């Protein structure tokens, strides 16, 4: 199959994810959108690895998965804590750390 199709799919997924990060307020949704972007990147890596026949892209994809897993653990814990203290998961309300 044409590798370009995988890349186009990855780009579409990445854009959906980025759009989600930028416009959604709910922290959980934002978080999911980030995951979509990571997976878009993974798809591109895997497709590239397949195309070139080397393992580099696969290794990178594994790295991303591990990092994403760790990130989910930490990120969700933070979101839960914020929700417990503020009764809200809106990221716009958690804007205390500014100038």
């Amino acid at each position, binding site marked *: 199959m044409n590798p370009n199709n995988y890349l186009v799919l990855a780009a579409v997924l990445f854009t959906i994810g980025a759009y989600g990060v930028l416009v959604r307020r709910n922290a959980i949704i934002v978080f999911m959108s980030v995951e979509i972007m990571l997976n878009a990147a993974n798809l591109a890596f895997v497709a590239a690895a397949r195309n070139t026949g080397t393992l580099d892209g696969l290794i990178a994809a594994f790295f991303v998965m591990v990092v994403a897993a760790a990130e989910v653990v930490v990120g969700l814990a933070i979101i839960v804590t914020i929700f417990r203290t503020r009764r809200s998961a809106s*990221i716009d309300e958690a804007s205390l750390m500014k100038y």
Partner: protein
Amino acid sequence: MIAALIGLPLLGSSVLLLGGRRTNAWGHFLAVAMSAASFFVGLGLFIQMLGKSEEEREIGQHLFDWIAVGAFQVPFGLHLDQLSIAFVLLITGVGTLIHIYSIGYMEHDPNRRRFFGYLNLFVATMLLLVLADNYFLLYVGWEGVGLASYLLISFYQQKPSAAVAGKKAFIVNRVGDVGLSLAIILMFVTFGTVTFDGVNAAAGLANSSTITWIGLALLLAACGKSAQFPLQSWLLDAMEGPTPVSALIHAATMVTAGVYLIVRAHAIFDLSQTARTAVVAVGAITLLLGAFIGTAKDDIKKGLAGSTMSQIGYMILAAGLGPVGYVFAIFHLLTHGMFKAGLFLGAGSVMHGMHDDVNMRHYGALRTMMKVTYATFGLGFLAIIGVPPFAGFWSKDEIIHAAFGQSMFIGLATLLGAGVTAFYMTRMMAMTFFGEARWEDDVHPHESPAVMTIPMMVLAFGSVFGGMAMLFLGDIEHWLEPVTGFAQPDHSVSNAVLIPVTLAVVLIGAGYAWLRYGRRPVPVVAPTNVSLLTKAARADAFGDAINEAVFMRPGQYLTRSLTWFDSKAIDGSIGGLAAAIGGLSARTRRLQNGYVRSYALTMLGGAVLIALVLLLVRL
């Protein structure tokens, strides 16, 4: 031995100034002793010198190598010759008399010890000035006497006028010092040396414009120290100091240092007609200006100060005449040192008896109350106006004679000066010792104690016989000739004509003054409806007004505007830069608004930008 001359009074001054109150009780005796010891050392050296042949009279004492930087080699060396010894005897002789006088004059002053410390310091530095064997060491003495003068003028420090007068004297002198500095620098650059011998030997090799500039720079220095036009204004204010100071520093010795400098640098002036002409012009202007100021002063000390300016003008003029005049400049300097010191001490004695009042309009008829003062002052008066055979006659006549030899115009100036001198001195005599008593209430004039009158008598003796002694016994012309050179003046106007004419002019001046102030009553309050000339003379010929308008006010304006410029423009521009950076930071800080989404957008924008750049660069 030469070093001892300076060392003794320096020691005295150190003990008095560093010793503090412990020396209060005997300090003044120490000062007198040191000054007198220095005089006797000087006398010993003089007698030794008399015993030698003319060529061997000049002796030197090399103390140590003072400064050696590259070619700039200056020894710390002293040098005693016929010219120096004359000064040494004048300084220590008159100085010792004035020390003695001051014991009485300053008796009730709580700071008498300090006063004597300064007086000794003055004697030491003045001796250094005349004994130095190079211009650079001379500069140290030159400024040392300036310092002593500053300290003594503002001796009554609690009086603002005295403090201002001292400062003014120092600063005006500093303008003169610029001249001395430049002269020394020029000498070094031109001749590679600043010793008297070195400069004298090499003077003929330099080009004439350099020599002229050195001469003019030296003249500037002399103008500052000797209160010559245009740096004359400080001397009148200097009368704020105690009267013995006026006698010693501002009449007999320090103010004549300018004459010494010019005579000492005769090798330079011999070679430059332009510089000599400038010297003569300055002398002529000052001798008339000083005499003119003297005619309208009611303050006895300021009257004498104007007279000092005028007499030094004679000396400077004589020095400017070149080899025909150097010895007469020094001759007049020596006689003037005696009679003017005597006159000042007399004025001090009068003030002492009149509750420190200096206004002659409050005097009158004192000849009966202060007989000794009257007699000594009178002898000094006869000497200064040039009545034969008193001291001033001989020296002033020689100068007038030499001046006529140079040019009719200069001669007439000196002649006119002699007439005006007779006028203001007679006026002073008349207002002080004659006429009716115009004393203030509760003033009881009395004669001063012997410790004061004896020095006055000694000086009066000098005023009578000093001139004849130096001229006939000492043969001053040939005594000084090996140092300064001497040429017979051009006798275009013979003495047989000149002496009667001079005496006639003096008589007219004195007679006119007697008619105005001796025969007629003197108003106690100075009349205000007087001619413009009198007003000008009272205002010191507007010297201060000119200084103020030309230097002080623009200077103050410049200082103020520069201060403003510094804080607003220089510091302000740098502060402005800092403020601009701070303001910019305050703006950009706002980007940190706390919304995760806006940060995400920024990141996305950045990523897109980088991607675009990469794409474009690859294309």
